[in-house]
């Protein structure tokens, strides 16, 4: 299989403009003849549905939530990057491009990243025009803050609820189109299968989660904006219902899955407190603007933080990375926290935690300023831990937060399966092996507002202007049959163990062997354990209730079944990538000082996996990454 990224000709800075200038268009009168299915209504899905509807296409948007406003984009706290240079601190499109390439540890496509940096400025304009209440200065201009991996202030924010405000902006644009009738919204509908007709994606099978009704939907193109797969780990900062089923079903139907091993472990989350825990809560990276991270210098120092004198504290990020300090990128900060805890210097009951201390900032700026900046985050921390971070340092520990891998797409966001487009976190394209903070919102909205609406017509222009395939066609009947069979299997399995118990066990395997540090032996063991667990799942899972009603256990069963396959693929990818880069750290590949050792000779490529059948070994394909503008350097934040 040849994976052609279809990168346009010309100098890097002109590629996107040339592509738009010379791309094919669809006549305004013909647009409504094209039906487009968009799965997901997060930042990418909602913004794409709104924009394509506004352009005149017939859009059908699907969400398993009860309202398009609930997607997990809503939980992003800290901000969104844009190369506006409103701070006059030397920012530019090039610098945002460069920071993103370097932050991604030279494992992303230059052309995609440059385009992302270019359109970043349009996103802020668009959101402000929609009424998104970004933070402002007294003079009325927009305010910025700093984020990890950058030495400029380019992050726009709306208190600690930036994701919510951006999603509500996209939701308002989507609502307007729904009201105008250009977008038909299908809530409570979960995509359970992709329908491929003559080698092209032409429809989906959904289940109405409230009634259990299975439906067939056809279109001229299918777009997935269904988010990432971090819930493979069970415990993560993802919403409980976030899942990979749409992407995984597409993968099984022929779409290759790229770089599944690139997972982001966020350094500042509230530590796990008990066995019953259902999710981990993030404390925004923005806290690292004013908070200082430290661990006790002595092993096993169990004194309360206030009793540990200054000279017995190890501000390890400031010590190891003096030029970026507490704002070192996420992968590096997470690994440093793990090292401190592995050395026995962790804090809290479990010893899996380090301090994020605001006492210096409170002394310097006053409690009111800190409250103004982070009040809601301190409140969340208090709710969960019952501790006040104004008085005692926060305890934090890394947690799974984002997945850089995803379905492979070309420059047009089309997968190798024609007619199937993938946006946002669900694709693999822009963040390489590590995503910088405040760049997920940027990518979701870039893809939905500005990229897809300009690239989808290139495909549609060549699609005959005939009605979308009939939902009575054999491909639709067969796909529905697969869904019915799977659902029936779950409900009639008569097993003894709950879906949740399997999810938990899978999560433990993934965290232990495919988490922050990975080894050959560990990954091989994990693959074996996952295969055993999968076999046990299908033999012994118990799904109570019926199919024709709201049945949350049945929904979870389908998702966990897919995670059990995806988890294995993640381990296979991590095993094959014999280097350390970004969010993928192999113990065997490190410098003597513990920093990640890339192998640019052998691994400066995208690994895209092709599904070969149930319980078959998937095939690894390669898309080489050519760097024209940037030179490989060892990523240093020292």
């Amino acid at each position: 299989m040849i994976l052609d990224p279809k990168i346009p000709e010309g100098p890097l800075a002109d590629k996107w403009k040339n592509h738009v200038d010379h791309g094919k268009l669809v006549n305004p009168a013909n647009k409504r003849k094209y039906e487009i299915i968009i799965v997901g209504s997060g930042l990418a899905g909602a913004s794409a549905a709104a924009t394509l509807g506004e352009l005149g296409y017939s859009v059908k948007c699907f969400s398993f939530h009860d309202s398009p406003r609930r997607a997990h984009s809503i939980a992003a706290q800290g901000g969104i990057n844009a190369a506006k240079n409103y701070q006059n601190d030397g920012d530019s499109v090039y610098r945002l491009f460069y920071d993103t390439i370097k932050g991604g540890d030279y494992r992303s496509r230059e052309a995609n990243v440059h385009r992302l940096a270019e359109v970043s400025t349009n996103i802020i304009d668009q959101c402000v025009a929609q009424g998104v209440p970004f933070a402002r200065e007294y003079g009325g201009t927009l305010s910025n803050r700093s984020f990890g991996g950058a030495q400029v202030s380019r992050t726009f924010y709306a208190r600690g609820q930036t994701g919510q405000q951006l999603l509500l902006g996209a939701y308002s644009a989507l609502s307007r189109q729904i009201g105008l009738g250009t977008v038909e919204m299908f809530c409570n509908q979960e995509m359970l299968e992709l329908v491929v007709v003559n080698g092209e994606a032409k429809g989906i099978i959904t289940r109405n989660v409230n009634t259990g009704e299975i439906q067939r939907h056809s279109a001229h193109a299918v777009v997935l904006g269904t988010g990432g797969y971090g819930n493979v780990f069970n415990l993560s900062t993802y919403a409980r219902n976030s899942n990979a089923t749409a992407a995984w079903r597409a993968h099984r139907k022929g779409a290759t899955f790229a770089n599944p091993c690139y997972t982001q472990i966020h350094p500042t989350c509230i530590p796990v407190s008990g066995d019953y825990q259902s999710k981990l809560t993030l404390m925004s990276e923005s806290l690292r603007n004013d908070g200082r991270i430290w661990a006790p210098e002595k092993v096993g120092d169990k004194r309360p933080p206030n009793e540990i004198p200054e000279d017995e504290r190890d501000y390890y990020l400031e010590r190891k990375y003096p030029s970026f300090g507490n704002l070192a990128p996420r992968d590096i900060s997470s690994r440093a926290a793990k090292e401190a805890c592995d050395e026995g210097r962790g804090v809290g009951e479990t010893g899996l935690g380090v301090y994020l201390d605001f006492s210096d900032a409170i002394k310097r700026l006053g409690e009111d300023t800190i409250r103004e900046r982070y009040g809601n985050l301190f409140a969340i921390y208090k709710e969960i831990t019952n501790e006040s971070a104004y008085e005692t340092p926060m305890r934090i520990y890394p947690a799974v937060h984002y997945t850089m891998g995803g379905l492979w797409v070309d420059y047009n966001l089309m997968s190798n399966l024609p007619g199937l487009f993938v946006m946002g976190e669900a694709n693999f394209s822009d963040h390489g092996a590590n995503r910088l903070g405040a760049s997920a919102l940027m990518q979701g909205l870039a893809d939905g507002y500005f990229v897809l609406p300009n690239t989808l017509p290139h495909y549609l222009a060549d699609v005959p202007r005939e009605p979308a395939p009939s939902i009575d066609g054999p491909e639709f009947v067969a796909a529905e049959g697969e869904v019915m069979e799977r659902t029936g299997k779950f409900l009639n399995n008569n097993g003894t163990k709950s879906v949740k118990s399997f999810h938990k066990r899978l999560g433990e395997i993934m965290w232990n062997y495919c988490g922050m540090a990975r080894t050959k032996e560990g990954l091989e063991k994990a693959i074996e354990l996952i295969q055993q667990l999968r076999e046990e799942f299908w033999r012994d899972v118990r799904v109570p209730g019926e199919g024709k009603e709201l049945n949350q256990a049945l929904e979870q069963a389908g998702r966990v079944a897919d995670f059990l396959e995806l988890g294995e693929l993640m381990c296979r990818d991590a095993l094959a990538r014999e280097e350390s880069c970004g969010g993928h750290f192999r113990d065997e590949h490190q410098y003597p000082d513990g920093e990640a050792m890339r192998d640019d000779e052998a691994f400066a490529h995208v690994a895209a996996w092709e599904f070969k059948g149930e319980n078959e070994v998937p095939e690894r394909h390669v898309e080489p990454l050519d760097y024209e503008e940037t030179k490989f350097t060892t990523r240093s934040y020292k």
Partner: protein
Amino acid sequence: MNVKLRVWRQKNNDTEGGFENYEAKDLNPNMSFLEMLDVVNENLTDDGSDPIAFAYDCREGICGTCSCMIDGKPHGPETGVATCQTYMRSFKDGDTITVEPFKAKAFPIVKDLVTDREAFDKIQQAGGFVSVRTGAAPDANAIPIGKDIADLAMDAAACIGCGACVAACKNSSAMLFVSAKAGQLNLLPQGQPEKDTRVLNMVASMDEAGFGNCTNQYECSAACPKLISEEFFSKLNRDYMKASVKTLFKAKAL
């Protein structure tokens, strides 16, 4: 700790519902209320019974999915939090806790504790937006907005669309939701051109969905997980009056 639960069970909106009793044992006070329900459901599943259906997603108080009436209060005993941010330490060992769905005519029951809040989406579709084409926006700093206005708009925009305001209101009014949504956009310069149609259409849609009238008792604001202020009512009333009078006299925008 141990608690007893009285939980509303209802197969769907067409059948009668009723309370069932359950026991939740050996709980950790630092568990969230929903994690406690997870544990109860695991036990029900092990016993071969039908688990309790309840709505949840982000479990960090921002998506607005969770929606339990706990001891008669939307989202439980604490102020300024959603159900998912309610922890068992807010209850005492041995307590009996009554759990119901958000009940309102405009929110039909789907199953057990899950209700359908699509009516909120309909209100948004009627006018909860600024009509701006993608790509047609001026530079973001071309519209200066005073910090006080931006902050007020953000206060209103914090609404998570959970419906606690409606559940708390004896009339099932959606006044807090609508006033926050319309207020955010009507405060900002970007929202001015459509200010009048926005309030007229959103209020009409609210009435059509079957929400009740507001009698200014502010239970909504007290129950709101984001503590959105009832002050936005007066803004909505003012905007609505102005828009109605202008429409009545077919006034030109002179």
